[in-house]
């Protein structure tokens, strides 16, 4: 007889409410499910008829940890629909904000949410007794990310300074200089912490061939600005398609056990996020990033989803570097006061594809001639990853010699957490 057992009721140290359920036939586990229990908010459907001016602030609220990514991707999609070109200074400031969020998000995940697992501790404060320096560094890096978001975004969560056509306020030169110096100090500190991460106990209890999807850009690592094409890396090689064809990735299916629908590519689950970005953009990784990859012993493409933790650490190195570079470019070019360019609504469709901290993010809207929303699609990284998490759950169960509940529960929690799921995000879906 088959029965369902809730293994994890409320997954800890991730954003939002998710759980893990297993199906048993007698003593044998026959299936594992990732349950997204966060309530549906239906934001895309509720946007219908609202003014273009309300769209970015409303969709920012999809998720706090990714709120800068949602805001900036939303503005980009609306600007594309109305044919608005923002200034190079705005582009640079927005990208700096994007990096700030990534620093905050990756520092939070790597040092404060994932690291306790490797030391069998329930939380970062509990880990602080044993590893005070690592926890304090995590807090400092996270704070630096927030300082960038405060300065450029006007607020650390749900930024208010980026507006359609530009930025409300341009930061002062003295503030940018102070930020640059803080980034330089953080780069030095992080270099030492990479060795600590490299020395962590192995987490190679599961192996599975994985398909990765990320944005590829000409000449640069996958950042906010202008993703040229979406690239799929699988055992069948690389495949490219244009951002406008994003729906190929979102063959979404309603699932009875989850408020998040499942995405597949040609019927196969795929992974997005830091590990996918590194895999797709391996040749565009900076020397400092390459050094971190080597020191962490990361082999790409990887067949272990736990490597996403290490991939985030590599990106942390590159984010600090990139943020500093952006500030130096701004200071060299001179920071000018500037008002947003005027925005005139018109009927049309705009799509923006970016790389949020947790992976590929798509916002696509259709507007009528007065700038009222006709339809809105948001496709989030965690929604895209949901099918892949479950696949890796099943592989973990299949490959585990010990099938007792505590051992399996711990492994499944580690897998889920390595994806750094943002469960609030995952509940946002395309209309049928």
């Amino acid at each position: 007889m088959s029965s369902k057992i809730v293994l994890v009721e409320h997954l800890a140290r991730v954003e939002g409410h998710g759980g893990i359920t297993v199906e048993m036939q007698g003593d044998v586990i026959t299936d594992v499910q990732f349950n997204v229990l966060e309530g549906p908010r239906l934001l895309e459907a509720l946007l219908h008829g609202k003014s273009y001016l309300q769209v970015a602030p409303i969709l920012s609220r999809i998720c706090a940890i990714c709120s800068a990514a949602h805001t900036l991707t939303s503005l980009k999609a609306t600007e594309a629909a109305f044919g608005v070109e923002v200034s190079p200074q705005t582009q640079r400031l927005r990208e700096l904000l994007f990096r700030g969020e990534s620093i905050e998000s990756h520092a939070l995940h790597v040092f404060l949410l994932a690291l306790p697992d490797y030391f069998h501790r329930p939380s970062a404060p509990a880990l602080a007794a044993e590893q005070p320096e690592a926890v304090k560094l995590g807090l400092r890096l996270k704070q630096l990310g927030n300082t960038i978001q405060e300065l450029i975004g006007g607020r650390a969560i749900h930024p208010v300074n980026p507006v359609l056509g530009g930025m409300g306020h341009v930061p002062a030169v003295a503030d940018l200089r102070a930020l640059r110096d803080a980034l330089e100090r953080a780069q030095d500190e992080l270099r030492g912490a990479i060795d600590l991460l490299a020395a962590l106990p192995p987490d190679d209890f599961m192996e599975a061939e994985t398909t990765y999807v990320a944005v590829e850009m000409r000449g640069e690592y996958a950042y906010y600005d202008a993703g040229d094409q979406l690239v799929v890396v699988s055992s069948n090689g690389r495949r490219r398609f244009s951002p406008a064809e994003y729906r190929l990735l979102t063959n979404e299916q309603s699932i009875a056990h989850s408020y998040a629908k499942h995405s597949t590519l040609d019927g196969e689950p795929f992974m997005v996020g830091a590990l996918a970005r590194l895999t797709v953009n391996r040749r565009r990784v900076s020397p400092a990033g390459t050094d971190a990859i080597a020191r962490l012993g990361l082999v790409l493409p990887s067949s272990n989803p736990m490597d996403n933790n290490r991939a985030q650490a590599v990106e942390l190195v590159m984010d600090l570097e990139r943020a500093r570079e952006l500030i130096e470019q701004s200071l060299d070019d001179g920071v000018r006061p500037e008002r947003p360019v005027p925005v005139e609504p018109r009927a049309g469709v705009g799509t923006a594809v970016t790389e949020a901290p947790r992976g590929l993010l798509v916002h696509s809207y259709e507007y009528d001639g007065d700038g009222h929303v006709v339809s809105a699609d948001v496709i989030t990284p965690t929604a895209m990853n949901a099918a892949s998490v479950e696949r890796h759950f099943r592989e973990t169960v299949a490959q585990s010699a010990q099938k007792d509940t505590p051992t399996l529960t711990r492994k499944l929690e580690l897998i889920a957490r390595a994806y750094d799921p943002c469960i609030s995000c995952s509940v946002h879906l395309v209309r049928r």
Partner: protein
Amino acid sequence: MPKPRVGIFGLTGCAGDQLVILNCEDELLDIVDLVDLRDFVMASSARDAECPLEVAFVEGAVVTEEDERRLRQVRERAATLVAIGTCAVWGGIPAMPGEAPRRELLRLVYGDVGEQYGDGEARAVKEVVKVDAEISGCPIEKEQFLKALAYLLNGDMPLLPSYPVCSECRIQENHCLLMGEGAFCCGPLTLAGCGARCPSLGVACIGCRGPAPDANVPSAVRLFASNGYGHDEIVSRLTTFAPVAAGRSA
């Protein structure tokens, strides 16, 4: 005296208010020393899900049956329940009115599977259980959280400003976007505490902190109308963050 037992909970929302607490990077390790943090799933996998709590902070709107069950359980455990964030205090964005009933939208998004998801309506925490104190904001301001926590640790109820953002904006001598630019600035109606973040950057207030209790709503609506905004637009903007305050029928 034993340390007060504290729990931090999230219902349906964006987790922004819990993240504000985690963003107290300078204070976090001190807070953990001052209180006995028993139940905070977003930050720790060690949780005591049963113990009585001196203080519970609850973020998010009540959307699912599970949200309601969890909220009632927290209320039973907590001597003092503090609603944090605009969703918990006023329903927030999840309760924002749309063009069709939630049940219809659920069907539209999920198909037949949507039938099992209840009515999809979002409620503020005080519409379901008794609330002892509120910290509004989308998200809450870090300083207001720390101040409220200090009050509670000293056995007092938090005392936070009840005047509008307009007052804070005047103190900063900002150029008035409502009168001077004809912008749709919700500063006169919105609860202070953010230091007039948006108008200080030249960006109009969108009312994310919910209403100030003594705001003059008819006067502000007349100003919006004289700035050229139509009735539907005014209603849509003013019900975005605090539909419960607007009585939902507006």
